[in-house]
């Protein structure tokens, strides 16, 4: 391993490759900030450039830099404008945006930068140590377990909506799942629920829905009830995190780097699930007092998804490099690029082309460091976006919302769908329905149905639920997660009533 490390260091520290990392991170960050262009599309755009370089290590290093940069840049628009452009950063807006609203935009971005850095670095360390061993673990996970894992994720999300809200969160999750079934499914190739409308053939767009659920209602609320975007004194205060907060988020970062990495290793799970599960887990294990803070600007709630999604990005390289199985859309595009460069990822990669494997790992460390160094000094300027006068900021938010939905599909009907859903989402927000579960259900819906269908076909029925202990265990956890909060609330209420009667 030491030999490999040195080979990797030698390759990664060549001037050309260092420039590739820096360039990739910069490009990724800036384009990632535009809502509507996620890591997948940015990498796809960069592929011709990467292939024309001809050097597989350099190409992979560049693309990995772009990937990290895009995930980091995506969290910026989630935090500042509540407009997540990437599925993996949706969870960052839960606490990041409230923090920005309280005037702590600088601090939120700092926490995000540090958490991303730590998640990515620890992930790369784990990748270095465990990559060969992990590839066999990833293969143990079956589509039945993926299905169960997603059920756990969804019920965790519904459960943490809070007391008295579980039913609403469940309804929203189910609506999200229902919306995910519109269009052609991967397994059936039959258009479903399109009502004969051609534009619905490929289903609703994720970005359209994300913009309609988060950015648009938020912008409308700002119009309806003008208030200062940056808190009381109009200044960006509290740029640095305090020692106390650093102490609070340190264990979160530690746990989520591990958890995120291992979720990322599972093909198909990836950064999105890692960030949602990370948020849910941290919320559930936090002490009662801090639990109420979640969703209102908790530092922990921001650090958890940010760490997890970066660690998961790193983790997703494990199946790609060791098995040649891409775990997500992004790594699938990377795989395509590698094959075009005449490198076949798989078990032989570490034997045949060790310099590529290790150079990528080394460039992950460098890339994370570059991101941190580039971003920390830039944070005060990025946070200044919020000081733009309201009369200009709101039209621009609306414009970027529309742009995000338009660029991906190049279809103006998408914009009408966006406005329509935006109005529905605003009405739901008035009635205090949580909107995040709908989006999460929508994102996970297609994956969930595919895995469910696959396991049904393998077992010729639903018997996989009781024949696979791991599936059964995960599903049991999911049921407990939904039932427990309402049971606890009922008992607490009963006790309260009892005390009142006794007096």
């Amino acid at each position, binding site marked *: 391993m030491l030999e490999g490390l040195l080979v990797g260091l030698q390759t990664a520290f060549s001037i050309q490759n260092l420039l590739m990392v820096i360039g990739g991170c910069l490009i990724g960050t800036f*384009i990632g900030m535009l809502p509507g*262009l996620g890591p997948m599309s940015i990498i796809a*755009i960069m592929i011709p450039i990467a292939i024309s370089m001809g050097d597989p290590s350099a190409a992979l290093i560049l693309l990995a830099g772009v990937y990290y940069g895009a995930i980091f840049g995506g969290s910026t628009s989630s935090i500042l404008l509540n407009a997540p452009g990437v599925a993996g950063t949706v969870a960052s807006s839960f606490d990041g945006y409230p923090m920005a609203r309280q005037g702590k935009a600088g601090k939120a971005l700092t926490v995000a930068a540090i958490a991303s850095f730590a998640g990515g670095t620890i992930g790369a360390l784990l990748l270095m140590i465990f990559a060969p061993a992990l590839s066999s673990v990833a293969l143990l996970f079956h589509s039945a377990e993926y299905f169960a894992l997603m059920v756990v994720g969804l019920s965790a999300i519904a459960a943490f909506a809070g*007391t*008295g809200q*579980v*039913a*609403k969160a*469940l*309804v929203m999750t*189910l*609506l999200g*799942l*229902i919306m995910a*079934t519109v269009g052609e499914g991967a*397994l*059936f190739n*039959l258009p*479903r*629920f399109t009502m004969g409308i051609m534009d619905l053939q490929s289903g609703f767009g994720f970005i359209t829905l994300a913009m309609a659920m988060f950015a648009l209602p938020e912008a*409308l*609320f700002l*119009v*309806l*009830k*003008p208030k200062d975007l940056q808190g009381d004194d109009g200044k960006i205060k509290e740029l640095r995190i305090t020692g106390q907060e650093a102490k609070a988020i340190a264990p979160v970062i530690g746990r989520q780097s591990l958890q995120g990495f291992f979720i990322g290793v599972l093909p198909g799970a990836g950064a999105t699930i890692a960030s949602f599960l990370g948020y849910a887990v941290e919320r559930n294990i936090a002490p009662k007092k801090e639990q109420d803070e979640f969703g209102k600007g908790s530092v922990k709630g921001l650090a958890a998804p940010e760490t997890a999604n970066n660690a998961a990005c790193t983790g997703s390289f494990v199946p790609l490099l060791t098995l040649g199985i891409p775990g997500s859309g992004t790594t699938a595009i990377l795989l395509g690029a590698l094959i075009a460069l005449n490198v076949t990822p798989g078990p032989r990669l570490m034997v045949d082309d060790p310099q590529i494997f290790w150079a990528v790992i080394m460039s992950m460390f460098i890339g994370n460091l570059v991101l941190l160094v580039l971003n920390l000094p830039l944070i005060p300027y990025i946070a200044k976006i919020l000081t733009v006068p309201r*009369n*200009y900021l*709101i*039209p*621009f938010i*609306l*414009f970027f919302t*529309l*742009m995000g939905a*338009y*660029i991906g599909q*190049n279809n*103006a*009907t998408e*914009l*009408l769908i*966006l*406005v329509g859903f*935006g*109005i529905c989402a605003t*009405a*739901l927000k*008035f*009635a*205090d329905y949580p909107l995040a579960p709908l989006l999460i259900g929508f994102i996970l819906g297609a994956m969930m149905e595919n895995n*469910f*269908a696959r396991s*049904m*076909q393998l*077992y*010729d*029925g639903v018997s996989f639920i009781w024949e696979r202990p791991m599936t059964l265990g995960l599903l049991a956890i999911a049921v407990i997660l939904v039932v427990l909060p*309402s049971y606890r609330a009922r008992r607490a*209420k009963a006790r309260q009533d009892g005390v009142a009667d006794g007096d």
Partner: protein
Amino acid sequence: MALDRWLALVILGICLAYGYAAWFTMDGSLAPFMKRNPIWPSTFPKVLSVLGIIAALVILLGLEKAEPKEADIDYRRLGEYNLGQALLLLALMVAYALCLRPLGFLISTSALLILGSFILGERKWHIMLPVAVIAAVSVWYLVQVVLGIYMRPLPGILGG
């Protein structure tokens, strides 16, 4: 009845329509060989529709007690907020969607940004106009030239 229960009623309606489509209209047109499959395209929607109906009924019947919370905006007094501005902005977005193709990106976007600020009460034309035009041109340049995603810049009759 409070707004959240009205919405639950609407959602219940959606789930019923969805359930009807899944249970009664989808299986008939299935190819015979697909009927041997343990899972049909309608299986997952069937499960979802039942769960959705149950969950919507729970809210509609008020089975789960929630503590009333102080909402950010009270919808019962919607008229006291800047409702007109919000509706105008929504109309503007619809107009943008309809004009984007025929008028081209540059004109529609500049118009959106200028009218948006105008609706919100901005009257400083000497700032509004350059800001909007520069933003429209630079975003178009970034997307079309740098990233290579085609967007029609000018109206069709001008050959854009």
